[in-house]
C-alpha cells in the first residue's frame, strides 16, 4: 500500500507546472482563450488517458490528478477537463482519439449534472447527453446560446443540435472522471489562493505591522490550509476508485467534489477577506481565481448536490464500506 505519488506521477505534474508557469501567467488567463494548450499537448496532457494504440499514454486518472491540480493552480482557460478527461472516455474506440491525443481536437461536453457546455465556442467537437445517451455534435450542427456568468474566462453555452452521431459509450464513466478532474482543479486553485493570500498578508501593513502577523489572519489561513490538506486525499482516492471501477466509486467521486469545492470556496472567501477591498477589484488578478473557484465548484454538481448524495450513500446503504 503506497498512498503517495510515484516519481513518474510527480515528474509529469512538475512538467505541467513548468509549462503553465512559462505559458499561462495571469496575464494570459485574463486575455487568452487557450494559452499553453499547444505546449501542454506537446508534453502529452491530452493523451494521458488515451490508450497507447491511439498514440496516447494509456495512463489512469490517478496519473492525471496532479497535472489537473496544476491546471487549477494556474486557472488555465479552455475546456481542458472536457478535452483531456471526458472526451477520451466518451470517444473510446473512436478513430478521433488519435487527434485527441495529439491535442488537435478540442472538445466541450454537456453531460451529467452540468447544464451548460463550457467554452463550447472553442470546441472542434461537442459531446452532448440526451436521455442518458451521449451524442457527438459537429460545431456547425450545434446552436450555442451564450449563458455568460461570473467566470468570464470559462464561458458557458446552452447547446441545441440538429444532427448528431450517437456514441456507443456510457455517460457515467466520463462524468465521474471529469468530476474528479474538476475537483483536482479546485484543489489546485485553492492552493494558489492560499499561497497568494499568504504572500499578500506577509507584505501588506496595517496598524504598523504586516497583517499576516495578526492572529485572526493567521488562524483563518490555517483553517484554509487544513481544509485543503484534508480535501486532497479524498480527490486522490476518488481517482483510484474511478480507475479500479470500485463499487463505492460514485460515493467517492461525490466526496471528492464536495470536499474540494468547499475547501476552495473557503479559500476564496478567506482570500477576499484578507485582501480587503483591493481583492474586490479588477486591479489584482485575484478575481480571476475567485471566479474560477465559484464556477468550478458549481460545475458537474455543486457541493450541495454531492453532499445530499453522500448522505444517502452513507446513511441509507446497509453497510458503509471503506476501501481498501
Amino acid at each position, binding site marked *: 500500500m503506497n498512498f503517495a505519488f510515484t516519481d513518474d506521477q510527480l515528474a509529469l505534474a512538475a512538467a505541467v507546472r513548468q509549462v503553465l508557469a512559462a505559458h499561462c501567467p495571469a496575464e494570459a488567463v485574463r486575455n487568452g482563450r487557450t494559452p499553453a494548450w499547444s505546449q501542454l499537448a506537446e508534453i502529452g496532457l491530452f493523451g494521458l488517458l488515451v490508450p497507447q494504440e491511439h498514440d496516447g499514454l494509456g495512463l489512469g486518472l490517478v496519473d492525471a490528478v496532479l497535472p489537473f491540480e496544476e491546471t487549477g493552480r494556474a486557472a488555465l482557460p479552455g475546456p481542458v477537463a472536457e478535452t483531456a478527461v471526458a472526451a477520451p472516455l466518451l470517444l473510446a474506440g473512436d478513430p478521433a482519439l488519435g487527434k485527441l491525443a495529439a491535442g488537435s481536437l478540442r472538445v466541450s461536453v454537456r453531460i451529467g*449534472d*452540468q*447544464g*451548460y457546455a463550457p467554452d463550447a465556442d472553442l470546441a472542434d467537437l461537442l459531446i452532448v447527453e440526451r436521455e442518458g445517451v451521449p451524442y457527438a455534435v459537429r460545431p456547425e450542427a450545434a446552436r450555442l*446560446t*451564450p*449563458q*455568460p*456568468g*461570473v*467566470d*468570464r474566462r470559462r464561458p*458557458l453555452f*446552452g447547446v441545441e443540435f440538429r444532427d448528431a452521431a450517437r456514441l456507443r459509450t456510457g455517460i457515467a464513466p466520463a462524468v465521474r472522471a471529469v468530476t474528479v478532474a474538476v475537483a483536482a482543479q479546485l484543489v489546485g486553485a485553492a492552493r494558489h489562493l492560499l499561497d497568494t493570500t499568504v504572500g499578500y498578508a506577509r507584505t501588506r*501593513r*496595517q*496598524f504598523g505591522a504586516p497583517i499576516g502577523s*495578526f492572529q*485572526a*489572519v493567521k488562524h483563518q489561513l490555517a483553517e484554509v490550509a487544513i481544509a485543503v490538506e484534508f480535501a486532497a486525499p479524498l480527490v486522490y482516492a476518488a481517482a483510484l476508485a474511478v480507475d479500479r471501477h470500485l463499487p463505492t466509486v460514485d460515493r467517492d467521486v461525490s466526496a471528492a467534489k464536495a470536499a474540494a469545492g468547499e475547501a476552495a470556496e473557503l479559500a476564496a*472567501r478567506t482570500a*477576499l*477577506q484578507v485582501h*480587503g*477591498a*483591493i481583492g*474586490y*477589484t*479588477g*486591479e489584482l488578478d485575484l*478575481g480571476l481565481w*475567485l*471566479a474560477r473557484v*465559484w*464556477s468550478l465548484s*458549481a*460545475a458537474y*454538481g*455543486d*457541493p*450541495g*448536490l454531492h*453532499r*445530499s448524495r453522500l*448522505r444517502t450513500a452513507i446513511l441509507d446503504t446497509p453497510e458503509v464500506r471503506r476501501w481498501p
Partner: protein
Amino acid sequence: MDLDFTRAEQDFRAEVRDWLAGHVPGVPLPSMDTREGFEAHREWEHLLAGERLSVVSWPVEYGGRGASLVEWLIFEEEYWAAGAPGRVSQNGIFLLAPTLFSHGTAEQRERFLPGMARADDVWAQAWSEPEAGSDLAALTSRAERVEGGWRLHGQKTWSSRASYADWGFGLFRTDPASARHRGLTYFMFPLDGVTVRPVAQLDGEHGFAELFFDGLFVPDDLVLGAAGEGWRIAMATTSSERGLTLRSPGRFLATADRLVRLARSTGADPVLADQVARAWLDAESYRLHTFGTARRLAAGEEIGSASSMGKVFWSELDVRMHALALRLLGERGLLDGGAPDAEEGGRWLDGYLFSLAGPIYAGTNEIQRNIIAERVLGLPR
C-alpha cells in the same frame, strides 16, 4: 415590553406600502454604477422626495416628516419588501447627514440637507486611502491652510458613487505634525475639482473610484466642525444612529423572504432548507434586536460599541443568504444578467458579490470583533 405598533405607526406603514405599490418601477432600474442607471436612480429619489419619503426621519424643514426611529424602521421594511431601487443617496443621507445634524452649522444644514433629500446633490464618501485601508487613523491626505480656506492634496480610494456624484466628504490631515487620530479635519468638497478614476470591480462595474486631489481649494464654510476635530466628529455618529442606519433590518428581511420563496420554488434539499430557515430567523432576530435598540436610542441612550455586534451579524448573514441562494440555484446561480437562463436577471449573483464587501467595509469584521472584545467585553488591548 411589547410588539404592538400604534395606530399612527400602522397608518404610516399602510401609507408607505400603498404608495410604493403604485410607484416602484416594474422593471429594475439599470445599475447605479452606470451613468444611465445613476440618473434613473436620481429620478427615483426625486419621486420619493416629492412624497417626503426620501428621508422620513428628518425634520420637515429639510424635506423629511420628523418620523420616529421606529417609523423609519417601518419605512425601511416596506421599502425593501416592495423591491424598490437601491438608494443612490445613501452616503449622504446615512453617513454625512447625521454628522451635519450633530456638528454642522445652521447654514450648512440649510445649504446641503434639502438638496441631499431631493438627490439634487448626490454625495460620495471619501474615507479610505490606499495605505490606510482598515487603519483609518493612518490617513495621509492633507489640507493646507490658505487664505479663506484650505487646499486638499492626496489620494482617496474605495469612494462609492464617486464616478457620477456631485459632492464628496472625508477626513484630511490639517496638522502636518500630527499622528494617528489627531490633527484630522472633516471636509466637504465639490467633486468637479477632483480627478476621479473609476475602479473596476469583480463584476466588471465601477461602483468605486479613486479620487486624486491636487490642491483643490475648499472654503472654510465647507469644514464640518472645528479643524482638528475630524476624527471625533466622524466617530461620534457611529455610536448613535449611524450604527442603526448603516444597514436597516428591512433590507435583510426582504432578502430572507426572497430566499424562502426561492427555496420553496426550487424544492430545497432539507439541509439547505434548514439553513434557509436559520437565515430567515436570523433576519427576524436582527429586526427584533433593532427595535430594542431604536427604543434605547429614542430614550436618549448611546448604543456605543454594541453596534459592532450588529455589523458583524448582518454582514455575515447577508453573505450567508446570498451564498445559500446560489447553492439553491446550482450552476444557474452563477449566470449573470446577460444570460437567458439567469434567475431574476442575475440578481442573486449581483447580491452575492455585493454582500462579500459587507464584512470588509465600514471597519472589517476582524476589527469589529476586536472592538467587541475590548470595548464591550473589556478584554485587554
